[in-house]
């Protein structure tokens, strides 16, 4: 099934998804995604012009909760799994200045 997905396209999309891929992965995915998209193309046979999109299985609108204070997860608990922290903050490498890159 031919569907033109280039390695370059895969790398561009992966960049949007904040995902580093190796060249080998990009090459493999390009072929595989081409096949999958080829199969997906059969949806184009359908006449859906007057069909409403269905984003959820169970239609409901505007689920409200009471605007009332309730206990949440404590800061210490929330930071428990952080790879790096400086309480009460998550710690990341320097973003500005030298860390900002080109």
């Amino acid at each position, binding site marked *: 099934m031919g569907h033109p*997905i280039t390695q370059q*396209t*895969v790398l561009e*999309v*992966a*960049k*949007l*998804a*904040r*995902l*580093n*891929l190796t060249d080998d*992965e990009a090459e493999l*995915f390009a072929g*595989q*995604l081409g*096949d*999958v*998209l080829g*199969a*997906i*193309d*059969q*949806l*184009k046979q*359908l006449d*859906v012009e007057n*069909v*409403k*999109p*269905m*984003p*959820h*299985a*169970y239609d*409901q609108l505007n*689920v409200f*909760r009471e605007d009332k204070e309730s206990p949440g*997860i404590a800061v210490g*608990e*929330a930071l*428990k*799994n*952080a*790879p*790096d922290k400086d309480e009460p903050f*998550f710690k*990341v*490498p*320097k*973003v500005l200045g030298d*860390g*900002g*890159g*080109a």
Partner: protein
Amino acid sequence: MDPTQTTLIDLRDAIAAKTISAADATRAYLDRIDKHNGALNSYREVIGEYALKRAAQVDTGEVTGRLAGVPIAIKDCMCHAEGTTACSSKMLENYRSPFTATAVQRLEDEGAVVLGKTNMDEFAMGSSTENSAFGVTKNPWDTARVPGGSSGGASCAMAADLAAATLGSDTGGSIRQPASITGVVGFKPTYGRVSRWGLVAFASSLDQIGTFSHTVADAALLSQVMFGKDKLDSTSADVAVPDGLHDVDGAIETDGQLRIGIAKQYLQDGANTPAVTAAFEQALDIYKSQGAEIVEVDLPHTAYGIPCYYIVATAECSSNLARYDGVHYGHRTSEPAPAGENAIQHLMCQSRAEGFGAEVKRRIVLGTYALSSGYDEKYYDLALRTRRLIAGDFDTAFKQCDAILCPTTTGPAFRIGEMADDPLEMYMNDIYTVTANLAGIPGISLPGGFDEIDGKKLPVGVQLLGKAFDEARLLRIARLYERETDHWQQRPMVH
């Protein structure tokens, strides 16, 4: 009694009658896990000390309830405050949840004893558990074969009696397909019936928690406990749960005549193996002999289920998995940013590259592509419209019948590695199960008999699909079949 060779309800009753203590029941399962998990790789993590502590509380009367002392296992994608919740991914290998998922909490509140977390395809993406970062789970009927997926650790644990019941999640068939090929009952309720709070998200509009068990009655009891609105999940349905849900031997409500629907889309020439066809025909005969009328229904958009699903599911997954950024929790790369590269961007991109496996990456790329500017209308919007057509097929069909009978899968378990290089072929595994997720309706896979390959008995299933929120009736219809068969009593020889 041997607590590992019974049903959940019988074990529960034996513990209540003090024929056996909860501690002894838990120990028996832990011993069995100890003995067999090395070969089967069903559990990703066992929390034995915690389980024994809980069981002791049942024995002292401190913990009571409808599931008091019953040892269960949960799929590794359900947050649990004890131990780790890894989603069988390197990304979450050391993740310790600060809370327990609502579905699990409700079972624990009724006295269930959680033994551990079962292996799965990473982030529930797959049909074989081959995508787990912790190794493949084996099918207890033939360890050269897969137990299905993504809830393959849970189906294996059920089939090999490494728990009295297990919880799974079903996004495109991830409970029903593994149940079918390991010979157990797998039940996916209506979307919204069970809270998703604490279920690690894959595709939020499709994900649903459900059960593995040996019997329909066990599935119904667990459902009675888990079902119902949860204020922590705004998508959980505010629809009354019938008190008699657990009573699977109750009368089936009909307009005077039970009607079982069959659809040619599930029965095409050559599509199913002879054993699958035989199981389907046996089920059909049972319903006929029980006085049901068989009605032909049409589900003309069934073939579009897979392409539709793989757009909707990957689009939602690409968005849901954006949270794994190497900052808040989960894996963080130790590789410093190359000179001139934005440090935080590198941290995110590289942490994700190291933390995710190939199938997860593939789906993130596909989903991002399908949602990206210029393609969203061509793919995502088109898939959502197709989804309504598929749901419409079921609406029409359920005006003519009470439940639809069909196979769960086209054949028995496949060999480990057999489909590993061909994602498209792997995706086709879900052909009979995805449409229920897209439409949001409940489905149950029941042990349907056996195929035999290389001298090994390999289970196949039959599936019943029902109307949304009509689980009580679906389970009674399932029970009608189960009562007339003994497939569910067959157990694999585990060594």
